[in-house]
């Protein structure tokens, strides 16, 4: 039996898990349209490989990972690419971003795919395949998995099955229904980081999932640890603290203390990729809240929210919006055409009965209940004052960037102050200022280098000139010293003029022989284009030569007006 530890703070919001955890998960049918945002993970936007009109097969790579901190995007089903362009994406700004839109053809025809033997390949290749397979952390943060599991050495591998946010039951259902597959995925992750111990942390409000995982983990050396239900136990740093007693240092990651943490759903996705050759094209999503029959669905990425809500029996009267994710940290949106992305674990249909509007914020009364609730051991009230006063330096001194934005402080605040919003504002401002500062520093370096280069050019030119003058002086001195001045002085200029004439001749010959390399074998269209450009150039030259004539005609009217 493992000794469990406590993290500071935490809150107990109403769980609302039973609504959706009772029914077995179902596979959502093919939607009418799939919208795949390119930015579905933390890191660089992948590079598009398809264009409008292309026919794509299920599992085909649509966008290639760009750089290391990135992940691929794949076609969730076979069909035709309708467009590659900007569309509304699930983002707090409500702005549009680059998306690939696919019209499914209904055949669901797979591209070529095959399982592979991960034990027979070097770890680097397995990591590359995870990246190209589009595997990212499915707990909500969508950090590319291959980056997380490239870290070594690691003594503890923590699998996160806590699922502490209210309403969400995807991991619960996944662990109940697909425990064996999750364990197979965990084995692959264990192979990658080779930990001394592997622990799955599950909150004690999921007895069925715990039983299923215990059964699947028998004789594998993987331990299932039951942790008390408390929000935010599922936070990476909090779960690591509970299971190992070690605290992730300020500004650090679990890797800094020899721990790596991954979600159970991520392990399942890794299993699908390795043992079935299937990239990340679908995920489990809880549809709950003000709907007729809350349930979990295996959903193709890119499916619009509206189709999921219909699957769950439709929204109840009075529904007025959606939360993507849980009520504590989720994203509030109003548009039901937004697609499900890799990080969407839950769709909650909002209604005023379930989520009454927040009463207006009152002044802070300095009760410090937020500090008691903060799981990151921060002083939320101080951070709030600094963020409100735009004193970002002080906010950083009070470790603003260790805030995990869990919302526990705002949940307990008796004045209903939207504290997290202030912290996000402060973080955004600090990042923007840092970016500006870096850009200014880079510009300064480039400007100084340019000044130095110009100075150097000037110096070199002067040196060359001085040398030439010196050489000429020496020559004339020599000529003067020559015992036969009549012949010598006349000879030298003759020699120079000969050299110049020879050089000019060489250049002429070179020009006659040289052929521009890109003007041969032109198609008539290209020739027409060239002629067109030449005509434009001629026209511009004409304009450029004319200004002396045109300017007076322009200025004349003003002169006459003055008169």
């Amino acid at each position, binding site marked *: 039996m493992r000794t469990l530890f406590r993290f500071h703070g935490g809150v107990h919001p109403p769980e609302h898990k039973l609504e959706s955890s009772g029914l077995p998960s179902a596979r959502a049918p093919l939607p009418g349209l799939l919208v795949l945002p390119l*930015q579905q993970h933390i890191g660089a936007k992948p590079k598009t490989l398809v264009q409008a009109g292309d026919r794509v097969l299920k599992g085909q790579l649509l966008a290639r990972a760009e750089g290391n901190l990135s992940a691929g995007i794949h076609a969730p089903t076979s069909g035709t690419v309708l467009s590659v362009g900007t569309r509304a*994406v699930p*983002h*707090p*700004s409500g*702005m*549009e*971003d680059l998306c690939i839109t696919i019209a499914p053809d209904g055949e669901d025809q797979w591209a070529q795919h095959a399982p592979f033997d991960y034990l027979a390949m070097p770890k680097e290749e397995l990591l590359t395949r995870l990246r190209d397979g589009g595997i990212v952390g499915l707990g909500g943060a969508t950090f590319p998995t291959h980056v997380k599991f490239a870290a070594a050495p690691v003594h503890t591998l923590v699998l996160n099955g806590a699922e502490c946010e209210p309403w969400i039951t995807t991991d619960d259902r996944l662990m109940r229904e697909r425990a064996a597959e999750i364990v197979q995925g965990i084995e692959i992750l264990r192979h990658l980081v080779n930990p001394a111990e592997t622990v799955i942390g599950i909150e004690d409000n999921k007895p069925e999932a715990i039983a299923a995982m215990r059964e699947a983990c028998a004789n594998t050396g993987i331990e299932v640890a039951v942790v008390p239900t408390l929000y935010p136990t599922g936070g990476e740093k909090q779960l690591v603290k509970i299971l190992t007693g070690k605290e992730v240092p300020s500004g650090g990651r679990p890797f800094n203390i020899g721990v790596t943490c991954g979600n159970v759903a991520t392990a399942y996705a890794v299993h699908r990729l390795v043992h079935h050759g299937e990239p990340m094209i679908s995920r489990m999503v809880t549809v709950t809240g003000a709907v007729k029959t809350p349930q979990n669905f295996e959903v193709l990425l890119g499916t619009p929210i509206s189709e999921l809500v219909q699957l769950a029996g439709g929204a109840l009267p009075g529904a007025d919006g959606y939360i993507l994710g849980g009520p504590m940290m989720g994203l509030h949106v109003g548009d039901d055409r937004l697609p499900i992305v890799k990080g969407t674990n839950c769709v909650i249909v909002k209604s005023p009965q379930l989520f009454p509007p927040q009463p*207006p*914020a009152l002044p802070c009364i300095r009760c410090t209940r937020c500090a008691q609730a903060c799981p990151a051991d921060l002083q939320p009230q101080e951070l709030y004052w600094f963020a409100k006063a*735009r004193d970002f330096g002080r906010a950083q001194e009070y470790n603003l960037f260790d805030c995990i934005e869990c919302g526990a402080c705002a949940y307990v605040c008796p004045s209903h102050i*939207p504290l997290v*919003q*202030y912290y*996000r*504002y402060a*973080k*955004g*401002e600090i*990042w*923007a200022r840092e970016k*500006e500062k870096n*850009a*200014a*520093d*880079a*510009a*300064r370096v*480039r*400007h100084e*280098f*340019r000044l130095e280069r110009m100075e150097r050019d000037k110096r070199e030119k002067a040196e060359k000139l001085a040398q030439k003058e010196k050489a000429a002086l020496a020559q004339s001195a020599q000529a003067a010293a020559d015992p036969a001045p009549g012949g010598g002085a006349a000879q030298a200029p003759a020699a120079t003029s000969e050299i110049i004439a020879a050089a000019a001749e060489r250049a002429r010959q070179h020009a006659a022989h040289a052929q521009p390399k890109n003007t041969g074998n032109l198609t008539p269209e290209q020739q027409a284009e060239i002629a067109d450009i030449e005509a*434009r*150039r001629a026209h*511009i030259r004409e*304009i*450029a030569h004319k200004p002396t004539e045109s300017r007076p005609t322009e200025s004349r009217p003003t002169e006459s007006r003055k008169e």
Partner: protein
Amino acid sequence: MLAALYVMAGIAIALGAMLGFFAIKFRVEGNPLVDKIDAVLPQTQCGQCGYPGCKPYATAIANGEADINRCPPGGEDGIRKLAELLGVEFKPFGEGTAQPKPKAVAFIDENICIGCTLCTQACPVDAISGAAKQMHTIIEPLCTGCELCVAPCPVDCISMEPLPQTIQGWKWQYPVFTLKQAA
């Protein structure tokens, strides 16, 4: 009595020698205030302040020759930072002088460019690529939006394009609450 005098004089001479030595050894080159001011300026090198670059403007401020409200790219935020650094009052942008504009980058219409290289010579941060009689292009991430390349172009093919608001550049706004009027 005499011994005490000798001791005091000895200490004074020793300390004086030390002070003199360290004054030479740890001499500060240049004016550190200029570098501090230069670090606050936005480094567009645009010359809108009337000086040929950010460093000359910083030097002029340090010498008390220039006002702190001459840098439009720095915005009012920049003036505030300068005021704080120098311990003087905040001063808004003067009327009739250059005013701050939304951030923009230069754009070369490649169909019109004749490859005269005048803009590359004008660019203070080497953000234009091109050679004689070849098409020129702005390297957008390096462009500071100083507009110095616009005037020299003989065919007017350079325009300033305001930077669009993108989802990557978006940031959370300061929380604002609308007050409902009590009935």
